[in-house]
């Protein structure tokens, strides 16, 4: 088990900064998800840790050692690639054995460890198959066994589940997490799939334009996004613009919303007259008919209704803004389009974000 740290990493391609001063620490044995839109720098960071990208400035430290001058093959890492990158001219067993053979391990040890690695990913019996004779999920498992059999210090995953269909993907997520816990290896994982990042990671970091926007435990980042980008990228959010009108004794501020109505929420610096941007997750909103609008309760009109089995998505016009709302289908029936409704929420779900 190892720690990986990156300090002030900068990488430019012509005028574009792929990494623009990234500092972060990956703790021993943790599963860390790097999340962001394409071109946000997450893949560049992963490739810099692997050694495929040399930084213009800053350091990559593995167990405290600066690995800047260490070539890829001497870094003792395991990596899984987007399309698995299995060796097509080798059998499953030869693929897994490769990393041990190039290290010159004795034949008996190689055979034993290959067998153990294939058993770990539940692929015993397929040793002699060629990669192209395997299904996507099986190829995935071979790639994982191959990456782990050398007992690397850190496991790097570059969108490894991207090529699988949804069902297989969920199965592999569980499998990946099981094996990662069993081996206890520090794992860094790049994905643009937010749900996958939330499911798998101990901690996540959201990237944009070569910078870390926010990092932390998935639930913390989801519930308390600090920027508009983080709130909108991880899950969905309604954004409400407002102005602080008063402070309450309980530490909350009273905010007059631009779309009409009033809300109370915690703000960073509750000066009267200050303009604030607030994020509100669609599932935190309660939809009611027949109650009065007031504090933390806005009047709206249902625009459209999308029923999707376990939940229903409503789009509701509030003032001149359209808000989205998810409702668990606890009862049968939906509110019809055109109905007048009241949206309400609890103040702790209204989160101030920077624009």
């Amino acid at each position: 088990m190892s720690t990986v740290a990156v300090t002030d990493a900068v990488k430019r391609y012509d005028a574009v900064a792929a990494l623009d001063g990234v500092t972060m620490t990956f703790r021993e044995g943790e599963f860390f998800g790097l999340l962001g839109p394409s071109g946000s720098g997450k893949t560049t960071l992963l490739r810099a840790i692997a050694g495929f990208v040399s930084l213009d400035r800053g350091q990559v430290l593995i167990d405290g050692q600066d690995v800047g001058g260490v070539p890829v093959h001497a870094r003792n890492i395991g990596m899984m690639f987007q399309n698995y990158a299995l060796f097509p001219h080798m059998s499953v067993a030869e693929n897994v054995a490769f990393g041990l053979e190039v290290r010159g391990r004795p034949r008996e040890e190689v055979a034993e460890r290959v067998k153990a690695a294939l058993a770990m990913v539940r692929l015993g019996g397929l040793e002699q198959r060629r990669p192209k004779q395997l299904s996507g999920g099986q190829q995935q498992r071979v790639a994982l066994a191959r990456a782990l059999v050398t007992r690397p210090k850190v496991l790097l995953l570059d969108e490894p589940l991207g090529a699988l269909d949804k069902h297989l993907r969920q199965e592999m997520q569980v499998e990946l997490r099981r094996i990662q816990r069993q081996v206890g290896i520090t794992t860094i994982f790049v994905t643009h799939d937010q749900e996958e990042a939330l499911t798998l990671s101990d901690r996540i970091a959201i990237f944009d334009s070569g910078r870390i926007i926010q990092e932390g435990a998935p639930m913390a980042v989801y519930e308390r996004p600090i920027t508009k980008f983080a709130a909108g990228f991880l899950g969905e959010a309604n954004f409400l613009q407002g102005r602080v009108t008063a402070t309450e004794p309980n530490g909350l501020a009273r905010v007059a919303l631009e779309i009409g109505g009033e809300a109370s929420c915690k703000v960073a610096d509750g000066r009267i007259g200050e303009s604030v941007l607030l994020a509100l997750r669609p599932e935190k909103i309660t939809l009611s008919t027949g109650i009065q609008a007031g504090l933390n309760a806005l009047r709206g009109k249902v625009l459209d209704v999308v029923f999707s089995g376990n939940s229903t998505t409503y789009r509701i016009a509030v003032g001149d803004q359209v808000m989205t709302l998810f409702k668990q289908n606890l009862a049968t029936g939906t509110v019809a389009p055109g109905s007048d409704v009241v949206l309400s929420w609890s103040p702790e779900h209204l989160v101030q974000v920077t624009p």
Partner: protein
Amino acid sequence: MRNRIGPALLTAHLWLVLVFLYVPIVVMAVLGFNASPLYALPFQFDLVWYKALAGNAKLIDAGINSIGIAIVNTAIATALGTMAALAFARYKFRGQTVMQLLLFPPVAIPWLVIGTSMLVFFYWVDIKRGLFAILLGHVALSLPYVIVVVGSRLATFPRAVEEAAATLGATPWQTFRRVTAPLLAPGVIGGALFAFAVSFDQFVISYFLAPPGVTTLPVEIYGAIRKGFTPEINAISTIIIVVSMGALLLTARFYRFGGER
């Protein structure tokens, strides 16, 4: 009914093409085993022309020259061509596009023109006509074929497998030997086959660059035909065809084993 006529016509067409290609070759090969020196029928089986061939020192010398040049040419052109193809595929450098475009004209320019220019150029830089000059000419001619064939293999080469090898601890040399080379082999072998065929088949350049007394097989066959010829030519041609078909089938077999995408 109609949807049966289409495939039937296509099959018939295919057979017609094959017949058109192979009937002259079969007739030529069969007549090599005919006793008559005047290609007279009826057919009477005899190995007399193969025996005569074995005693024909000039043809055998020419054959040895041809095979020798072709082998050396294949080794040089394949090595240089593979390196050039790797450079084109892996590096970005000034003038790359122009250089890549310049590879194609030598394939299209008539050999007569190339042969003449080489003759003039070699005279000018004082390279004497002979086996070395012939070899130079052959290498120059076969190089573009190797670069194009290996290059097409490289175009579909999965780079990620090389990166995967590096992450698994393979040094650049181990990666090349155990991953890049085996995956590239079908392309390299295809290129080598082209280089061999271009050289072994080459008449014009060899004819222009060969001094009196030195010949290659195509040049010798051409000379023999002009003087009036015997079925000995059929015998040597049959041998050439059998050998090159054998090489081709061998390559096809290799492709199937090593040529996964």
